[in-house]
């Protein structure tokens, strides 16, 4: 589904070029579950951002279903993010003034979906994630685990094919973290490809395919996993 070919991402820091990614080749198949691990500054998050079309490679090709997408306009990439990708962040990134339900509804609102259908889909999602009684609570009134579940509900409300999680348990206690991982793995079992960037070896080890990065390069890769190989 996703193929990166010789992808590099260079930043210029103080006039010096720093390569966060340096010639990465990576294929992610539909329904795959892979973890990206490595020390700080190894380029894990940059890779995730490139995968999610949040960032553009400075060299190399990004093929999404065989189509080159790194040259698309910002708006075209935004449209792909809206429909194909879901993001889960370490710090949840919920909008503080909105209730849980409103946060989950945000992508639907951006997609211009009618209020009636929006309310129905949000209610379904909250029910499914065990947040029904938290619908009208604001993020400040929710626990960390609940916040991350709201964020996951938001990430999946548009029915994405790929879920990109950047340190999803990094800001949670052990128990809540385990719940969140269970939730993500459940989604993966339902067919959504799951890419998890993590520091936590325990979390990383759960993935069927593990990628280890050092200095912007993939040092170790278990190879394409057992997702279906379209």
């Amino acid at each position, binding site marked *: 589904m996703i193929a990166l070919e010789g992808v590099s991402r260079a930043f210029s820091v103080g006039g010096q070029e720093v390569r966060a990614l340096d010639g990465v080749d990576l294929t992610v198949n539909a329904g795959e579950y892979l973890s990206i691990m490595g020390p700080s500054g190894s380029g894990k998050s940059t890779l995730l*951002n490139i995968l*999610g079309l*949040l*960032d553009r490679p400075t060299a190399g090709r990004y093929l999404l279903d065989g189509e080159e997408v790194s040259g698309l306009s*910002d*708006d075209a990439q*935004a*449209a*792909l*993010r*809206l*429909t194909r990708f879901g*993001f889960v*962040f370490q*710090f949840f*990134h919920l*909008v*503080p*003034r*909105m209730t849980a339900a409103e946060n989950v509804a*945000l*992508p639907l*609102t*951006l*997609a*211009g*979906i009618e209020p009636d259908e929006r309310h129905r889909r949000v209610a379904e999602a909250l029910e499914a994630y065990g947040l029904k009684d938290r619908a009208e609570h604001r993020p400040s009134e929710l626990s960390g685990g609940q916040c991350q579940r709201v964020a996951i509900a*938001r990430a999946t409300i*548009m029915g994405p094919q790929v879920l990109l999680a950047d340190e999803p348990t990094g800001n949670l206690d052990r128990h809540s973290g385990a719940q969140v991982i269970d939730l993500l793995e459940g989604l993966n079992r339902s067919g959504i490809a799951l890419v998890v960037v993590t520091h936590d070896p325990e979390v990383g080890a759960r993935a069927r395919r593990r990628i280890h990065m050092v200095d912007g390069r993939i040092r170790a890769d278990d190879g394409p996993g057992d997702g279906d190989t379209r």
Partner: protein
Amino acid sequence: MGTPGDARMSWGQRIAYAAAALTGHWGRSLLTLLATGIGVAAVVVLTALGEGARRYVVGEFASLGTHLLIVLPGRTETTGGPPPMMGVAPRDLTVADMQAVLKSPHVLRVAPVVLGTVPVAFGGRSRDTMTVGSTHDLLPVRNLTMAQGRFLPKGDPSRGPPVAVLGGTVRDALFGAEPAIGRWVRIGDRRFKVIGILASRGTTIGMTTDEVVIIPVSQAQALFNAPGLFRALVQARSRDSIEDAKADVVSVIRARHEGNDDVTVITQDSVLSTFDQILTALTLTVAGIGAISLVVAGILVMNVMLVSVSQRTAEIGLLKALGAKGNVVMGLFVAEAAVLSLVGALVGLVVGYAAVAVVGRVYPAFPVAAPPWAAAAGVAVALATGLLFGVWPARRAARLDPVAALARR
């Protein structure tokens, strides 16, 4: 193009989002609303005062009669040249002169005026009163109204009957509670029958109509033993014919006075239009001062929007990560600026009109009224500056790099 990514967020949804964001930091929003509101209220109140002053002056002049020419005997301008060997006294302006002027196609009505102060008496009561000799046409020319009875009858101005129309104060002084119509009063050494009472009009520029007695011009000339007129009021047919009427008056009088230009003609409308222009300019000036405060309010809107964008960087990054296009993000912030300035403008309108209403209550004689163009312009300027100054922060928001924006917490 039917994918959800191409569907657009409606403006209703954008405004709802913006309104929620604004109430999220209501303290700051409120201050901006206040600034915009004060600006719009200032425009409304200042123009209402300017317009009130203009209406007051125009109203005062209109109550004297419209399209008026005032003909005075004697030339007030110095003609230069050596003084005449024999003293050439200006000729009298006569009723016959005025009858001749009436033949001009540009002249609608003519009212001769003879003035003098004589004792007016009824029973044992007597009162020195300004007595005006004129004709039936004085009523429409001076915009007078009757409280009771009739005005002077029509007919040959050189042979008026001995009848009198009294001002309200004169009537009260002479008759008290008794009925006055049909009674005979003594004016100077002649007797006149009271046929009407003037309606009170309060004090206007010129003289009060409450303290006069009006009698036919021929009676007044006999009473004062003066063949000439004090002045004559000429009413032109329309505003456009005033200048033609003035030329006709001058030429007719010159022909009748053997080539001497011995009258002075003043047009009331020229005085009025000068006042009108000055006061309109004044109104526009104060409106402009009000508009400056709106521009300041616009800059405040920009300030609030800039703070809003920098405080909500993470939110903008999130919106972009969720798939919001640049113009959608921009639309959200423009909607926010629009909501801020529109609500501020509406608050200003309410406050402004309330203030105008209070002024109208406190000074009923002063016709304050905010002209609709001022209210519309105030709201338009508020919205325009709000949007104009809101666009820049909104563009900044739209151009934020999502990765960098998300990294900020």
